[in-house]
């Protein structure tokens, strides 16, 4: 279906974010369409993770607009154009539509795998426990973890924990999945099992925004690769183009370093 323009799920318009005096995001514009997989690459401190955290309002942007399904995230404008923070309830409702996977997994350590996956559907969405469990078991099976259903996170490897975290996010049936360096905390031999799950998701048409250092994954899976540096999007394009003939010197320099290291 490539080439056919699908509905825009997320639109980011000149978003700025400061941490004290530090101008972390310096006017980000971005559009994510249904079914797209976009990889964000760039040196550390370039604002990639902050952008992701702004998209589900874990960080609050100071200027600009983020639209999810055309609805503003976090801030609305009143009749006189003043920026007002939305109610907690509205923000939570928007967040529930966005799945997020963290670098450090952040599974709830006091709950089994199954309870981690059903917790939000039952307590946030109000799904019945039976329904939530049958859906959770299906997701856990899809992640290849059926024998770990009743294990606690501390009994799992990093790769297994990250796959549970993906199942937990999917259980909310999100419209988009955000991945914040999902394999950076993993031992090298565990990276592939997580990437394989993410490949399957992309193939099934999930809309995904992935901050990653895995250039091989980006080359294989991404519809578009976005290169960020110092709080701006420097360059973006299809992976084949961007990896082979990046135009900006900063992207060329970054890619040279990263690709040299992978070889």
């Amino acid at each position: 279906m490539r080439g056919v323009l699908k509905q825009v799920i997320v639109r980011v318009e000149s978003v700025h974010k400061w941490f004290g005096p530090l101008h972390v995001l310096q006017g980000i514009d971005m559009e994510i369409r249904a079914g797209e997989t976009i990889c964000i690459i760039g040196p550390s401190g370039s604002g990639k993770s902050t952008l992701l955290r702004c998209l589900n309002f874990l960080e609050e942007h100071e200027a600009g607009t983020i639209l999810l399904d055309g609805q503003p995230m976090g801030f609305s404008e009143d009749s006189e154009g003043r920026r007002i923070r939305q109610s907690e309830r509205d923000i939570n409702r928007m967040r529930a539509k966005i799945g997020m996977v963290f670098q450090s997994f952040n599974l709830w350590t006091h709950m089994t795998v199954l309870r981690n996956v059903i917790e939000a559907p039952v307590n946030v969405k109000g799904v019945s426990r039976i329904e939530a469990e049958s859906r959770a078991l299906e997701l856990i099976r899809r992640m290849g973890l059926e024998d770990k259903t009743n294990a606690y996170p501390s009994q799992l490897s990093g790769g297994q924990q990250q796959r549970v975290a993906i199942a937990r996010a999917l259980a909310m049936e999100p419209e988009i999945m955000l991945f914040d360096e999902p394999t950076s905390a993993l031992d090298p031999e565990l990276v592939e099992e997580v990437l394989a799950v993410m490949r399957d998701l992309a193939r099934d048409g999930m809309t995904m925004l992935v901050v990653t250092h895995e250039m091989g994954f980006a080359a294989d899976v991404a519809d578009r690769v976005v290169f960020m540096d110092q709080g701006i999007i420097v360059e973006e394009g299809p992976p084949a183009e961007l990896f082979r003939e990046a135009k900006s010197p900063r992207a060329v320099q970054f890619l040279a370093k990263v690709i040299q290291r992978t070889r």
Partner: protein
Amino acid sequence: MPARMLVELLRNTPFLIQLFLIYYALPSLGVSLSVATAALLSLSLFAGTYFAESIRGAISSVPRGQMDSARAVGMSYALAMRRIIFPQMLGYLLPALTNNMIGIVKFSSILSIITLPEVTMASQIVLGETFSVTEAFTVTALLYWSLTTAITMGMSRLERRTATHRLGAITISPAQLIVFNHK
């Protein structure tokens, strides 16, 4: 933040002085309290600050990512605290609370100074009548010891019941290091 200020004020001044202020200085402001009320009030305030500080410490011992992932699935702050943070902070909180409670039992002996008839005061009365120094103080010490031991045993049981699933996940937290450093 007035609560923060109250905690800092009470945590950084000696209990004995707080007790004197409440019992001897408040009447000059027109508030006269009975011995029992003054004793109860000062010990409660003192205990409250330590409990508050332990709870604050336990909450901040739960890794930040736990709250992030709870908010990311759409939980409200209150729901995230109840379902995610509170159950996990118990592992950090219970050892600190045990320390706090033992401290409070022992600190109650200071209340004898304003003539509250508690255990230490009673031992001095016995001492005055019998002159049996060794016996009186040994029995008193044993009474405190049995109380604190009962607390320790009860709390250990509670800790075992809440900690079954945190396999090797517990590390020493700042909350556990908060001990009574008053003299």
